[in-house]
């Protein structure tokens, strides 16, 4: 039996535990300090070289993009877009923070450390710092890249990026402060800011955005805003730190589990597995639904279920609807040459979330075996509803595509739009029906160890088929190019559907 006095005497601090763990790790170190320094040198050198190449490419792109934007309407739209992107990155930061915690621990830490009588606050404080340290640079880089491409002055880019970084850190702190309550307020705020960003984009697309400027940012008003944001963020961080002891293990471990699953999928470059993880998590959190009975028979039962599924997934529909703005905004930004490509990419990324039934049946032979029809029939049935929605989506982009084409008839615009949508549909099918990496294949050496050859191309999967369908439209943006594109995408799609 352990008395209360004995229990108190066993209390240990996080610092001593960390010291102990560091000692263990040092005992088991299998690399020398020299090897570590050499490896760090390679990483730092690679980061600098790749970063310099990326910045150089963006500066070049900035010059090219600027040449197509000579009207005040176009420059106004670009300035407005950068402001909207600041709101957008804060919304995304909040949503991501709510999904992972933002303060979280790995399942191992949850099971082994948090069950001991340690003082949790120092441990959790470091996690809060980590979350902020990830969010702030991510917001900074995103807004800086958009500002750079939009042609803003370097001074304005610096101040706007700093605003985004501080706002990102503040958003993380706010999400931490609300974490003990389940993060509902975080999600609500993220949703509000996301809707605000979408509305802003809509106004840009309609040439009705509120007038925005950035020149004043490099003067005292800009510094005042920065100072105020720093103050607010400091207060939010203080509040977040004070709330850390209120966090339960149940608030901390799910985010760590999610990150562990996602990092496992991403480490294997298996992006579709990451998709599965996110979809499974979304529905596990929902727990129950109102069951819907009825429906037709045969393969149409699967089609009917997709209609139910679509009604049940407002997030997926909203994502697809929001992505509809992309081609219109791109036209407004004076980037007419890229509208078809942007349209295909937006349909691909925005449409993915409506095809979960195709993915589930694609990776689940046991489930497909339950249906009294062929694998191809099951796959085709799961394509009907989301494919139809994507077709409507592509028809809705026809005005934007038409504006981007020289001397195009209405028929050309519609056919090119539908062809871009079909290319996106084939790309989605290619992406979702991909198998896991096959480690029985020959392996090639890489800095990350031996990897199967197929793994290297897995990040391009989907984009390859999209390029196949989009290239004919870029070469011949008319009815002929559209017919060639649809024929190519259709062939790929029918192969993917019938492939065992």
């Amino acid at each position, binding site marked *: 039996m352990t008395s209360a006095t004995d229990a108190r005497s066993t209390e240990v601090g996080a610092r001593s535990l960390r010291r102990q763990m560091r000692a263990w790790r040092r005992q088991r170190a299998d690399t020398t300090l020299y090897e570590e320094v050499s490896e760090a040198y390679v990483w730092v050198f690679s980061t600098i070289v790749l970063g310099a190449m990326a910045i150089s490419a963006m500066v070049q792109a900035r010059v090219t993009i600027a040449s197509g934007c000579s009207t005040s309407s176009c420059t106004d739209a670009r300035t407005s877009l950068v402001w909207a992107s600041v709101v957008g990155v804060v919304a995304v930061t909040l949503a991501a923070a709510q999904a992972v915690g933002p303060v979280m621990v790995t399942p191992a830490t949850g099971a082994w450390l948090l069950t001991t009588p340690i003082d949790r606050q120092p441990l959790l404080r470091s996690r809060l710092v980590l979350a902020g340290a990830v969010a702030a640079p991510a917001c900074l880089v995103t807004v800086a890249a958009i500002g750079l491409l939009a042609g803003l002055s370097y001074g304005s880019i610096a101040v706007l990026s700093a605003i985004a970084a501080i706002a990102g850190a503040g958003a993380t702190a706010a999400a931490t402060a609300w974490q003990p309550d389940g993060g509902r307020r975080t999600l609500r705020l993220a949703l509000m800011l996301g809707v605000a960003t979408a509305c802003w984009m809509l106004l840009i697309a309609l040439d009705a955005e509120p007038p925005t400027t950035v020149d004043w940012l490099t003067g005292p008003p800009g510094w005042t805003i920065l100072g105020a944001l720093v103050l607010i963020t400091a207060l939010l961080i203080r509040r977040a730190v004070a709330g850390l002891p209120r966090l339960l293990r149940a608030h901390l471990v799910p985010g760590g589990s999610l990150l562990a699953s996602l990092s496992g999928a991403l480490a294997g470059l298996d992006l579709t597995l990451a998709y599965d993880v996110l979809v499974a998590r979304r529905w596990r959190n929902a727990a129950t639904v109102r069951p819907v009975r009825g429906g037709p028979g045969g393969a149409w039962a699967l089609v009917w279920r997709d209609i139910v599924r679509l009604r049940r997934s407002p997030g997926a529909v909203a994502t697809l609807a929001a992505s509809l703005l992309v081609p219109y905004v791109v036209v407004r930004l004076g980037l007419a040459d890229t509208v078809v490509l942007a349209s295909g990419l937006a349909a691909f990324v925005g449409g993915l979330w409506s095809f979960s039934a195709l993915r589930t049946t694609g990776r689940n032979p*046991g489930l497909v075996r339950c249906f009294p029809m062929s694998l191809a029939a099951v796959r085709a049935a799961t394509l009907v509803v989301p494919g139809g929605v994507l077709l409507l989506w592509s028809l809705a982009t026809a005005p934007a595509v038409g504006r981007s084409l020289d001397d195009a008839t209405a028929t050309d615009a519609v056919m090119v739009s539908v062809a871009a949508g079909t290319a996106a549909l084939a790309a989605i099918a290619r992406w979702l029906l991909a198998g896991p990496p096959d480690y029985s294949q020959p392996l090639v050496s890489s800095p990350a160890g031996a990897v199967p050859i197929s793994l290297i191309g897995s990040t391009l999967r989907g984009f390859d088929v999209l390029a196949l369908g989009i290239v004919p439209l870029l070469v011949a943006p008319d009815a002929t190019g559209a017919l060639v594109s649809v024929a190519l995408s259709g062939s790929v799609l029918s192969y993917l559907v019938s492939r065992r």
Partner: protein
Amino acid sequence: MSDTTAAPLLRVRDLHRSFGDLHVLTGLDLELQSGEALALIGPNGAGKSTALRCISGADQATGGTVELDGELLDERSAATRRDLAVVMDDLDFFPDLSVLEHLNLLARAHRVVDADDVVDAVLADVGLLEQAAQLPGTLSSGQRRRLALASAFVRPRRLLILDEPEQRLDTAGLAWLADRLIAEKADGLGILLVSHDPDLVDAVADWVLDLGEL
């Protein structure tokens, strides 16, 4: 396996399955009539699940034939899928459809008459009425097993293939399963199962094939 002269519901002849130099199945023969149950038993690694996978078409045998009603079994054909109900470990679920909706989808896909009534009856039978609105991700492992079994009972079938159906079921669930399988036999179904539960095998199986002794 049967001494009747009627054409067997399932006939397996000289089934082979090898993985490189590892020969898991080396000439398995069996026959099963309608209304009979055959249990495959044996130690881990004896090839029981591999045999089920090859017979159901989930895996491709390296040799031998599998006939259903005298026709070569082709799991791609719609007729085979209508007759064959298979519950193995590779059965997963749609993350966004409830328990009831899974069964409703299968019943409708198989064009079951009075699908809603059949679904309700099966839900009650497998003890998942209270979980009808739940999504699969929130079910316990035992409840997921019951849903997997329900997916076989909600649709028309002539041959049931079950891989360790007793897994993760509680004591009451095991008793229910034995009764249900006996009732299935009485309805004229053939049952081929792999099991490590001697009580279930004793209660259900007319024939027992020990793959560890082959």
